[in-house]
């Protein structure tokens, strides 16, 4: 069994299992919410929704049955940090879910595990069994009367879009994994129509750290709007690819220094759905207020053909689009055709403008985040690498 390379030690290595839960159970759910709120924690999956707000709304939602779902469908190209957490710190994930259950009043938790991570399942089941033995899961958790919560693991089937929370819920319900219309949102109408919170693996782990070490400790890192540390999966043309922990607010240039990617001509931040940042903008920071990311950093060296990059991402989205809405289903292939025309030097400026306008429509009119993000890489490459992509000749 091989894990992604982990560089340096992670905060998660320093938190003892059970300490976060103990701290949480010492107070009320509302107190936990206050702590998380003052820590400033935002969702580590990439969208950056304030965790305390999501939990608060779910806690207030009507319903006698609520669910805590852990999104372990890590599928963004270039992301592998959740795999490290699942392999080395599963106890923190489950503990974070239990704290969430305490806050929102849930009895059941589900880990939606990426199909490719099936090999981790026996390990995760073993951790769950141990936690049940230790009374960290099950009836009257940690001796807290009436607080019962348990977690089951459910397998994904290999679809990228199931990382989108409503598609994930559809998949959990045994349906074809396709995003739902919003509103309503899962916090009031989620799994089996019950209030449901869906959080990323890493978010749950950080909740435990915050409960154990305090909100102040957490918010002392990062920027004002993007507090704390975050894990990054770094790959591509750099000397030291691997999983890193950096404070949010780190600039692209600083990050490249750390990983030995100073030669890069561009960095894809946020995976296929993210932005392609050119060298001229390496002073930008990785934070929710500037360049948001779920943790994927792909470094492109000086010899990379940016049209190959665009082609690769667009092919990925064509494969992974669920196919229900028109802009995403029909529009992304048109962008790919455009890239191939550019490669052959057959794309007129007028048509390229038309395609960029189409890309904006995709961002505006697609049903879910996948379609809305799909043109991002294409648009940023066209914007920043005009010299490279225009004026090619066939062959």
């Amino acid at each position: 069994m091989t894990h992604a390379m982990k560089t340096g030690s992670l905060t998660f290595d320093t938190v003892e299992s059970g300490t976060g839960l103990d701290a949480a159970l010492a107070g009320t759910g509302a107190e936990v919410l206050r702590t998380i709120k003052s820590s400033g924690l935002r969702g580590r999956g990439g969208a950056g929704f304030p965790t305390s707000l999501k939990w608060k709304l779910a806690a207030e939602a009507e319903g006698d049955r609520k669910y805590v779902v852990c999104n372990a469908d890590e599928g963004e190209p270039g992301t592998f940090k959740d795999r490290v957490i699942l392999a080395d710190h599963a106890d923190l994930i489950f503990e974070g879910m239990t704290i969430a259950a305490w806050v929102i009043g849930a009895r059941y938790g589900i880990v939606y595990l990426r199909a490719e991570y099936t090999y981790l399942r026996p390990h995760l089941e073993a951790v769950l069994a141990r936690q049940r033995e230790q009374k960290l899961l099950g009836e009257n958790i940690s001796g807290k009367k009436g607080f019962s919560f348990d977690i089951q693991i459910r397998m994904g089937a290999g679809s990228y879009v199931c990382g989108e929370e409503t598609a994930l819920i559809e998949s959990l319900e045994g349906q074809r994994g396709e995003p739902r219309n919003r509103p309503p949102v899962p916090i009031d109408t989620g799994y089996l129509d019950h209030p449901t919170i869906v959080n990323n693996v890493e978010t749950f782990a950080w909740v435990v750290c915050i409960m154990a070490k305090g909100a102040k400790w957490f918010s002392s890192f990062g920027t004002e709007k993007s507090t704390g540390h975050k894990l990054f999966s770094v790959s591509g043309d750099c000397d030291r690819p691997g999983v890193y922990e950096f404070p949010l607010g780190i600039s692209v240039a600083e990050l490249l220094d750390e990983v030995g990617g100073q030669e890069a001509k561009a960095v894809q931040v946020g995976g296929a759905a993210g932005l392609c940042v050119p060298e001229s903008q390496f002073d930008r920071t990785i934070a929710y207020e500037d360049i948001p990311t779920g943790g994927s950093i792909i470094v492109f060296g000086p010899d990379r053909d940016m049209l190959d990059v665009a082609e690769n991402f667009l092919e990925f989205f064509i494969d992974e689009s669920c196919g229900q809405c028109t802009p995403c289903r029909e529009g992304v292939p048109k962008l790919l055709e455009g890239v191939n025309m550019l490669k052959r030097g057959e794309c007129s400026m007028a048509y390229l403008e038309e395609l960029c306008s189409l890309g904006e429509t995709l961002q505006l009119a697609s049903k879910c985040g996948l379609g809305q993000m799909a043109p991002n890489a294409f648009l940023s490459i066209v914007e920043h690498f005009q010299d490279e992509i225009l004026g090619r000749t066939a062959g």
Partner: protein
Amino acid sequence: MLEDIRSELGDTTRAPASQRTRTAEVLKRARESHKPVEVTIDGNTIEVPFGATILDAAQQLGIRIPTLCYHEDLCLAGVCRVCVVEIEGQRTLQAACSYPITVPIKVQTHSPKVRRARRHIIDLLLGSHYGECYTCSRNNYCELQRLAAEYGVDCFRFGHLSEPRFEIDQSSHALVRDMNKCVLCRRCIRTCIDLQEVGVLEAIGRGNRTKIATFMDKPLAEVICINCGQCINRCPTGALRANDPTDEVWQAIDNPKKHVVIQTAPSPRAAIGECFGLEPGHAVTFEMNTALRRCGFDRIFDTNFAADLTIIEEGAELLMRLKRALVDKDESVALPQFTSCSPGWVKYIEHFYPEYLDHVSSAKSPQQMFGAVIKTYYAQLNGLDPKDIVTVALMPCSAKKFECNRPEMCASGHKDIDFGLTTRELAKMIREAGIDLLGMPKSDFDDPFGTATGSGVIFGTTGGVMEAAIRTVVELVTGHKGEDLFEHAEVIPVRGFEGVRYAELPIADVGPVPELVAHLFDDWDWLKGVTLKMGVCHGTANAKKVMEDIKSGGKFSQCHFIEFMACPGGCLGGGGQPGPTSPEIRAARAKAIYAEDRAYTVRKSHENPAIVQLYKQFLTDGPCGQKSHHLLHTHYMARGKYIE
């Protein structure tokens, strides 16, 4: 005397959660506790109930927002994105059809962003839609074509397919699927899974390889399609159509050696006017007769005659079952008896509840009874060789095309019905012949089956078969005139559009046994004091509810007789009817049908003189006798729902 108990099973069924709008249930609850919300659309402000969609609000304001995947009968999808609008303060555009208004919002329906996005979406849809409009069955009433015209599409901005991508599936007798024309709006899926709960169609593949397919992408004839054709009625393009036999029908008409007979069902006459610009709800029965003659049909018969015949045979069968149960105490007798005139329903039960097939009346549907009578009795009467007779059935139905091709439907020694024609297809023939339907003089049906009753007419709407049966059975048994029991002999409690209905009819006193059934019964004393329990349902989703109730020993398991119709609204909402369809259109057609019933002087099947004559001259051993059993009754096939 007739106790009306509306069913607790609910009006309409909604199927798998994934296909249902998430908003419906939550908002229903929320609506009770929330005040109306203010919404401003293009500068016009209106208050709407909490959770109303932007599309609802716009319709109230008289603002048109174009739609494609939206359909009134179906749950929301929000997939085509044609209806996107801009909401002030939101980054992305929202689909008006599926966005519920829960807080005051300001909406723009044609801002520059919206217009550009909409045009792009239409361009994209056209880019993957193969086919030329003038060779399409939906030319001139295609929703995609209309959108393109509305948005002034003057070129294929993102290209256009020059080669078909899919083979056309013509395997089914009833439906043709041409996925080259499919725009993936998924109305057919929602119709099949959600509205009808049959579930033959689902999306397979992802991205631009997504397509609508059957189980394992098998030909339609090999899966559990019940041929109801509801998907055709809701398809916005020419991707779904009925299997059209008009060329063969013309060929028969053009062949001087052939005697071409057409029978027309009640529902087409109440809807065909819509194909010629008439508002829904106007029957053109007698104009259509003239048009059919001018098309060249040799005889025009009214299917209502056969509907009356069905009532007699099915009613006699029901009384025989009741006698076996009540008098002989025979526990093996299958009750409740189910109607058998809807071929979509018959195939549904063959697939989904084959263990209940002995409950289905063995009486054939009116269409098939008529075919058998025409190729025997009528042939004899007119000295015709049945092999020279071509029987055409004008039906509101696509499943009838399958039914007439069932191998067991050859009681006359020939194919009892040669061709099933839909309302749409006849409209095409009438146009092709240059006939102005609405300007036609009126003319009657031909003898010897010219007289029909109102009971036959109402077969076209849900509850009609039950009402006709009640009229006849009550009179046969009690000796009282239906008019004495119900005002105008109208059995109101079984009427309406509730998905599932239940009614009770206590029989207080009985009369002498009429001659027509004297060979079957000595007296009716055993029915005295019995309360007849009846059920009515339409749409197979509702049929499923009733069947599940029966399975679990519920109220409907105690019924004596249940009417099942595969299509929502009954035959008037059939898969062969003109498009579009909506609850309002179906209600208008029902009104036309009930109006026609009132206009008949003879309104009960057993009073139909042509029926009386038929039993006297031809089916001499009476209803459910040996001869009628051979010609007018059939058997079914346990198909199951597993596909090999």
